């Protein structure tokens, strides 16, 4: 706790600003591929409040990574078409110059990447990889930055941090490397952290520890987090809201507890059924979702999920359902012609526990 107050002196938090931290409107990210145009993100809109944690879930290839990199404007701009709007703290990211983006990256908005084994530079010491953004954005001198690196490593739960800063990445385990990645991402106390499947490549016990560290630091610094995962179980207990992606679109978005009480999309339900549970004996087979994820170059007509959906009607195969609010809850939106009746689904233990 002393750590947290120390930090807020270094990085004054201006949370008096009204309005959401991030506003995404009708975002489209299109790659030109040899097979044709690929809409990896296809008209996504949502707001993110300050301090909020939004989970983004979806099968592999549903566009989660492209969405989070688009939000950060980190995708290489050549061979890429983007439209819509991403407003972060009043700055339009899509039209921001590289110089403006560089003042935001690492300082205001940062990212924890999926694979800690490849995300750290193998020939640069851990300490330097943490201090370089500190020195760039906060103007700390070498000693201050080094002391901060040690303190950050302590905060992410790395033992004997004084020695670790002098280590190279290959001297650390996967879990420790991901802790280092979190330390790097949080070094300058950004307002928004995008965590793209931060624990997918780690084993289950380590996963929980890493997510706990992230949640703890998020609360201390009052940051917003977008937690991307293909695993609903991971986001169920650690998010305020969940957006479900399918074929580059958000097909359902709702506060976490509401989603599990009254999910409307058959796809969300299928995703839940395919989610492994810690309480389950490991030999229980998961019900994989029937069929294959859609081809983003040639999306199916109508609802993109309709070819795999057992509730699909003729309308589903011909007309794209718009994302609309549920009749009884304005914060619950879904894109489905035949929503499921509201039956609670038991997957979460304590929904929305990380609400701050």
């Amino acid at each position, binding site marked *: 706790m002393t750590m947290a107050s120390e930090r807020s002196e270094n990085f004054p938090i201006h949370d008096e600003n009204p309005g959401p931290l991030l506003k995404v409107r009708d975002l489209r990210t299109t790659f030109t591929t040899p097979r044709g145009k690929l809409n990896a993100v296809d008209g996504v809109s949502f707001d993110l409040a300050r301090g909020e944690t939004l989970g983004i879930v979806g099968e592999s290839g549903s566009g989660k990574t492209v969405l989070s990199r688009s939000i950060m404007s980190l995708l290489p701009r050549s061979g890429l078409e983007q439209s819509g709007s991403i407003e972060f703290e009043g700055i339009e990211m899509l039209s921001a110059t590289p110089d403006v983006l560089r003042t935001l990256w690492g300082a205001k908005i940062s*990212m924890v*990447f999926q694979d800690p084994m490849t995300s*750290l530079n*193998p020939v*640069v010491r851990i300490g330097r990889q943490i201090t*370089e953004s500190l020195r*760039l954005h906060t103007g700390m001198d070498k000693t201050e930055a080094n002391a901060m690196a040690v303190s950050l490593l302590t905060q992410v739960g790395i033992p004997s941090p004084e020695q670790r800063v002098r280590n190279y990445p*290959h001297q650390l385990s996967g879990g420790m490397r991901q802790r280092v990645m979190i330390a790097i991402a949080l070094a300058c106390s950004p307002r928004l952290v995008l965590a793209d499947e931060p624990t997918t490549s780690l084993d289950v016990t380590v996963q929980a520890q890493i997510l706990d560290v992230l949640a703890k630091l998020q609360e201390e610094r009052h940051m917003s987090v977008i937690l991307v995962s293909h695993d609903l179980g991971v986001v169920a207990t650690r998010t305020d809201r969940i957006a479900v992606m399918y074929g580059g679109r958000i097909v359902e978005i709702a506060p976490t507890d509401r989603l599990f009480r009254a999910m409307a999309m058959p796809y969300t339900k299928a995703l839940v059924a395919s989610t492994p549970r810690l309480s389950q004996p490991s030999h229980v087979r998961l019900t994989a979702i029937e069929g294959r994820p859609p081809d983003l170059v040639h999306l199916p007509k109508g609802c993109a999920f309709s070819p795999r959906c057992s509730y699909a009607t003729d309308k589903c195969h011909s007309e794209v359902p718009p994302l609309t609010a549920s009749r009884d809850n304005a914060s619950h939106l879904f894109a489905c012609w035949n929503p499921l009746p509201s039956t609670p689904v038991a997957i979460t233990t304590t929904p929305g526990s990380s609400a701050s």
Partner: protein
Amino acid sequence: MTRFVLRRLIALIAILFCISVGAFFLIHLLPGDPTVTILGPNDTPENRNALLKELGLNLPLWQQYLTWIWNVLQGNLGQSFITHQSVSKIISSAFPIDLELIILSQIMALGFSIPLAIASARRPNGLLDRASTTTSFGMLAIPPFILIVVLVLLFSIHLHIFPGPGSYVPFQQDPISNLHTMILPAIVLMVGSTTIYFRLLRADLIATLQQDFITVARSKGLSDRYIMWRHALRPSSLSLLASAGLNISGLVAGAFVVEYLLAIPGLGFELVNSIQQVDYLSVQSITLFVAVVIVLINFIIDFLFTVVDPRIARE
């Protein structure tokens, strides 16, 4: 660390033993007779035999080898049969010239190839990249002994920018003129290295720039220039380093050819002279010396690998 050095040292001794045997026996396969060089073609067989005895050349080869290597181990490289100069003296006056030539050429090669590779890798298939890749491909096809002739014709004989063959000035005497005479041969040696370094570094840089850790570095807000020099260059330089090690013997051979053609009194020049005069001891000892130098440089490069990439264990 000490184990690393120790193991390398043992390997080194084994390699040097093999080289010494090779150098010795290969040279005795050379046609020619040192007594003809010393006494002329018309002397009597008695005089010749007396001279052979005096030089120890009448003994069986293995005995000659042992005598030589025993002396070498004691630091005595022997004397030239013909000029009676000690071989150590020849080496100590000639070798710095080779060293200067090679270092000069490598500084220029790195000075050209690193910035060019960085600029090319920044925009693969861009205009600069295509131009430099094509040019380097052409350069690779030009052998040094042709290049030197062309350059001398152009720059010394027609344009008079650089002095021509035979105008070597020792560094101690006049550093400026010395550098002036050494630039042209250094350029000849540089060309081959530059093209190789450029191509390897460019390819490795392009691969490294695709790595996740580069995206992470960008996501910290670091500038492209900083990312290139701090994050991309070092992990991309392993092939370059390896090629420098493989290249070094070719470089020495190239230096020898260039010295010979431009009458620069380096080791290559001395070595060719000694061979022509069938001066066994000089040839053997110079060859062994050059081999030691090449092996030592590779030894240093092996060590540099562990500096550049901490994952390569020094064990």
